[in-house]
């Protein structure tokens, strides 16, 4: 006779059973002592079952970790969008994370143990941390002068919250996490809304149900779709005032040869399955070529991804550069460059996802390239310093350009993560205003931003 637990396991799909077993074993024994044999014994499956889904222990850890991060991001965005005001939104996110961690000790411990798998695991975590930082950073929209808080502040707040939560989980004190929420919220609110608003957070209780304060049914029904329910009007105000509409472009990523077909196939497969869930079979199916053809061009999925990434970034950089050089007037050159970037990403949502989101989870080689690509946009803004009066130059810090690019990329990535890549062009006026303001002042910047093409 099967006991109840075993029967439940048997009812769930094979892959899920392996992942569940992995998480339990890893939580009990740590990364080093987790073996495929132990996982299979716990899952009640045999080796061929494991091989059908994973290439080995490392792959299994990273896949599970990737899914956990993706799930966490979906839940966070959903919690964020369940509220109207920024501090409530942030509190909903904090409660969501803490509730998950304190109710599922195995997953919490797994999230610590998986870091032993190395740089790729760490990069996935840091990607999630960037999203959390961008949710905190939205607090600047509540201020009279949104540029008055340094961009590192949100990053620092997210990172230190992680450190405190991490330490509690490692010590087996996950049940104390709810007490941490008012403390963390208080510190996070202060730089944006002032000390008194921060202190008011201390007297608020941990209340995970608060996140469903608005439209419970609507929000929870979106869960099954696998995509966060993010309507345009759910975005922070500076994103919501934009007119809807998208300009259909002909598909420009037209494929001529096998290599390009494989790259396009990879992008489609990743859009469907995520990076870790994508197999070579998925790629060849989307590309409509044989497995043999795949191996004539690439030795692995990773190599194909790097090739795809380089191709896409090259195209993107070409567009931006052409846009920027279309005029000698710097503010309009910036506008044209950003416009070209948004147009390309909106026309190719799969490629947008590949180069702006999946790149961060595809391992250290790609993360390095990602950072280099982001840096390549910095000089366009640096040109803006030329000929500015001394009082403007004094206002700029050495990291202004880096912060502008970072802020821009974070806004774009957030839309892509929310499945809204096709509406990216709506961001143009805001991004133009945001990036030009430090150089031109807000009045002049908003004038350029408001111009029609």
């Amino acid at each position, binding site marked *: 006779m099967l006991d109840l637990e075993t029967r439940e396991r048997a009812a769930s799909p094979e892959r899920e059973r392996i992942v569940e077993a992995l998480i339990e074993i890893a939580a009990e024994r740590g990364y080093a002592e987790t073996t495929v044999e132990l996982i299979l014994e716990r899952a009640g499956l045999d080796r061929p079952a494991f091989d059908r889904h994973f290439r080995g222990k490392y792959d299994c850890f990273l896949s599970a970790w990737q899914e956990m991060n993706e799930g966490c991001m979906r839940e966070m965005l959903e919690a964020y969008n369940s509220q109207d005001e920024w501090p409530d939104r942030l509190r909903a996110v904090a409660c969501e994370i803490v509730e998950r961690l304190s109710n599922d000790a195995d997953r919490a411990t797994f999230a610590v143990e998986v870091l032993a798998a190395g740089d790729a695991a760490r990069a996935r975590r840091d990607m999630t941390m960037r999203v959390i930082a961008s949710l905190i950073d939205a607090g600047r929209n509540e201020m009279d002068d949104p540029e008055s808080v340094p961009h590192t502040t949100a990053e620092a707040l997210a990172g230190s919250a992680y450190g405190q939560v991490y330490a509690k989980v490692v010590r087996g004190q996950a049940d104390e996490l709810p007490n941490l929420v008012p403390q963390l919220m208080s510190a996070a609110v202060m730089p944006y809304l002032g000390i008194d608003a921060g202190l008011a957070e*201390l007297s608020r209780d941990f209340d995970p149900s608060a996140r469903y304060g608005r439209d419970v049914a609507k929000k929870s029904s979106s869960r099954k779709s696998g995509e966060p329910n993010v309507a345009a009007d759910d975005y922070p105000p500076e994103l919501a005032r934009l007119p809807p509409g998208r300009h259909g472009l002909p598909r420009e990523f037209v494929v001529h040869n096998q290599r390009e077909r494989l790259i396009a196939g990879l992008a489609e497969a990743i859009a469907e399955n995520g990076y870790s869930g994508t197999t070579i079979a998925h790629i060849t199916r989307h590309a409509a070529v044989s497995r043999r053809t795949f191996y004539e061009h690439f030795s692995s999925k990773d190599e194909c991804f790097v090739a795809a990434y380089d191709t896409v970034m090259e195209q993107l950089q070409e567009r931006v550069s052409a846009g920027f050089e279309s005029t000698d007037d710097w503010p309009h050159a910036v506008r044209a460059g950003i416009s070209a970037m948004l147009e390309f990403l909106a026309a190719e949502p799969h490629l947008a996802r590949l180069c702006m989101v999946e790149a961060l989870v595809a391992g250290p080689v790609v993360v390095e390239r990602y950072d280099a690509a982001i840096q390549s946009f910095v000089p366009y803004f640096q040109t803006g310093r030329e000929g500015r009066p001394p009082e403007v130059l004094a206002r700029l810090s050495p990291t202004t350009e880096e912060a502008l690019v970072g802020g821009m990329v974070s806004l774009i990535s957030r839309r892509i993560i929310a499945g809204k890549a096709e509406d990216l062009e709506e961001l143009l006026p805001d991004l133009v205003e945001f990036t030009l303001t430090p150089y031109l002042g807000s009045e002049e910047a908003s004038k350029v931003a408001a111009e029609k093409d």
Partner: protein
Amino acid sequence: MEKGYRAVTVADIVRRAGIARNTFYENFSSKEDCFLAASEFAVKEALRRVVDAASKVDSWPARVNAGLSAFLHYVSSEPALARTCIVEALSAGPAAVDRYERSIQAFVPLFRMGRKVSSKGEELPTTLEETIVGGIFWILYQRIIMGQTEQIEELLPELVEFALTPYLGAESAKRIAAEAPPTPTAS
């Protein structure tokens, strides 16, 4: 320290140090013990430099400015050590979490003094100082991972503003952050 905590073996350490395996175990009980010693050394040294720089000025906000300046200078001049204490500690799993927390706690009292100059000192969140130190560590961790150790010192005004805002309000914090601290090399 070049390979990261998990990949480093005791054999690597003794080869690099040019000592016998026996000598290693006469001094340390394990790899983590050795990392802990390296980290304690770095924290002690950083703290010495911070206190030294801070004692040259009078007010607490100016001390934060001077101390942080000395700290960033030290981190950017010792990237390998910083990597061990900050990056590895946040990725090396349960064994390293004590190391991470001890490093944080070493700096907490320096910020806690700010409660005396703040009008809301008693009401501020109890974990505020851990948030500030942890936040600074995280920013440094990100820069070290990205290979941007040379730019670490440029972060000073932003980090000073971040650290002072909860005690003094954004306006005063920004003003002090804009003042140049005494050059750390003078110490």
